[in-house]
């Protein structure tokens, strides 16, 4: 980092920062008001996840670990792991349609929760406290809903290979959808009022602006890419589960600023609610009653794996991906020894997005740093290096 102007000074912030935040080190070069350069150092949270995963004794333990790499994306990460494992074990085409619908349902529910929580953070960063508290309240309501029916506020322990881990009936799913609809309805009302709040919008507009060229150069993903005009969504471009059967509306804005990222999240909330309704309709159409047919215990899973290996359906590699709230999560598994996958490579969208963040915040106002950080919303935990 080199000084560019007379009066520029360097200072560090982190790894232990104010409030409740993840450990990360920021090195700023600033003239006081303007931020000229930023270096980010990760690595304070390096947990050697690859080695930890390779040491586990069964597939269930590996799923539990994958879920806890980034707790806020637990369902998406475990789903990508399960899809890759099913790919390797030759079970890809044998997953029941209802199970696929349930997976879609909870993946979208997770997206909704994360977006509402992030709206709360963004609004707080713009110093509008009341709507921030209201968003936080509704995110809390969603977490409590998940806890009531799935015993986990973060949708952990639900996924398993070619099965489901929780007992749920159609009425439960109906109740969850009804509650989510009511929450989203209230959230939309706050959004409507918030959009009319001039100071909130002014602080977001033109803040942390990135263009499409930079977004492409840094291979940005998810919300950040969509806000800069790149419509990359694996649910549309490379459909997995039953996403191919849904006509998803394009969520794409072109300004690339904080406001665009905020609006992409709002659009995705509407989109996710439509997908949840589609899943519900299809479950009814398929005469889904409860999850007892898809509950997978250890013996059943071992039997399925043994059968697959005997028939020679297994492959050398397995690949799975899921579009999480922040972008795609890729999982690559290899070297199945009969108990676990010895090599698992998980890639979260944050690895690309933080590079763009470093680029995007250059020559912005120091006062806007919080807003920029909130709109990018990257998890340090997922970048295990």
């Amino acid at each position, binding site marked *: 980092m080199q000084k560019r102007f007379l009066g520029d000074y360097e200072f560090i912030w982190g790894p232990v920062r104010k409030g409740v935040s*993840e450990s990360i080190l920021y090195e700023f070069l600033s003239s006081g008001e303007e931020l000229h350069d930023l270096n980010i150092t990760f690595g304070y949270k390096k947990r050697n996840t690859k080695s930890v995963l390779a040491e586990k004794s069964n597939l269930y333990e590996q799923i539990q*670990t994958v879920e806890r790499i*980034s707790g806020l994306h637990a369902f998406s990460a475990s789903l990508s792991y399960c899809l890759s494992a099913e790919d390797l074990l030759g079970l890809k085409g044998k997953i029941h349609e209802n199970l696929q619908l349930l997976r879609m349902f909870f993946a979208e529910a997770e997206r909704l929760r994360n977006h509402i929580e992030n709206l709360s953070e963004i609004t707080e960063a713009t110093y509008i406290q009341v*709507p921030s508290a209201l968003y936080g309240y509704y995110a*809390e*309501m969603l977490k409590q809903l998940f806890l009531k029916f799935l015993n986990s*506020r973060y949708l952990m322990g639900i996924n398993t290979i070619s099965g489901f881990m929780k007992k749920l009936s159609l009425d439960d799913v109906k109740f969850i959808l009804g509650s989510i609809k009511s929450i989203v309805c209230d959230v939309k009302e706050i959004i409507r009022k918030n959009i009319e709040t001039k100071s909130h919008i002014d602080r977001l507009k033109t803040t942390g602006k990135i263009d499409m060229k930079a977004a492409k150069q840094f291979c940005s993903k998810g919300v950040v890419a969509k806000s800069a005009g790149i419509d990359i969504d694996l649910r549309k471009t490379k459909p997995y589960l039953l996403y191919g059967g849904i006509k998803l509306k394009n969520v794409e804005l072109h300004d690339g600023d904080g406001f665009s990222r905020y609006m992409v999240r709002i659009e995705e909330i509407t989109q996710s609610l439509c997908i949840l309704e589609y899943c519900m309709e299809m479950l009814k159409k398929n005469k889904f009653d409860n999850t007892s047919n898809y509950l997978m*215990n250890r013996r059943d899973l071992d039997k399925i794996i043994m059968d697959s290996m005997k028939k020679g359906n297994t492959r050398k590699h397995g690949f799975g991906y899921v579009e999480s709230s922040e972008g795609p999560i890729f999982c690559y598994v290899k070297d199945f020894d009969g108990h676990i996958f010895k090599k698992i490579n998980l890639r979260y969208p944050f690895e690309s997005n933080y590079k763009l963040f470093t680029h995007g915040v250059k020559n912005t106002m120091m006062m806007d740093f919080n807003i920029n950080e909130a709109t990018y919303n990257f998890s340090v935990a997922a970048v295990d290096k």
Partner: protein
Amino acid sequence: MAFFWTYNGLKFGIKSVKFPKENDFYDGFISSINFDENKCLNSKGLANLSEKNGDLTCIECESVCPTGAISLHDIYSNSSGKGKASRKSGGALDTNRCIFCGLCVDTCSDIASAINYGKDLNLYTPPFPGNDRGKIFKRSLFVKHIDTGSCGACESEINALSNPYYNIHRLGIFITPSPRFADVLLVTGTYTKEMSDIFFNVLENIPRPRYIVLMGSCSLFGGIFKNGLKDGNDGLLFNDKMKKLFKEDNVVALPHCPPNPFEILNVLLLIKKGDFK
């Protein structure tokens, strides 16, 4: 516009829980795993006893536990022959190690339903009694958080405490940016090698008397990330550097993965009131 949001906030009304005056939790929440030894096959001695399992009838729950929280051999001694296993003192479940993955509950539900979720607010007694056990903080409580390698779920739960539902500020508990103003250090994460010096640096800056709350299974023993490698992920409970601190400071273990906001709130209130028994 300021008036507009003030009006909307007032119109929204009070949504905070009455806790701790009343335990008005939402339908209860999972705060413990209950082990019913009367239902356990080992207690009944019904099925065929297997010698290779140390004369225990069934060790399914123990074998599925990813963190080694269940030790059936600790409560059932090896019986001299085939018959009912006798009980030794001590619990089957190590509360500090349980991450609430639910694998034992799911497994046992097909066999004997001896393991179930408990929905009571079951606070684990702090394992390391320090010098001060009574009320040591007179007024508000200031909490400093440090992340030593967590997944982000614990942080999300601490942040949730500030939402209108829990609203910790009404109870005089605040998150402080500086360790110098802190009364409590809230530690999350697996205690990575990179964070070890930084953790002790932060700790040195917190004036005594103080409390250290090890929040989540990761900070206690490494949680699901505990491995056989030399590089960290071991948590703080069995850390050599912490042994001295356990004698001098007040250390509280707050297990589970992640702990429910009510559990965090409960611990902070107990510290504030000096109600630890």
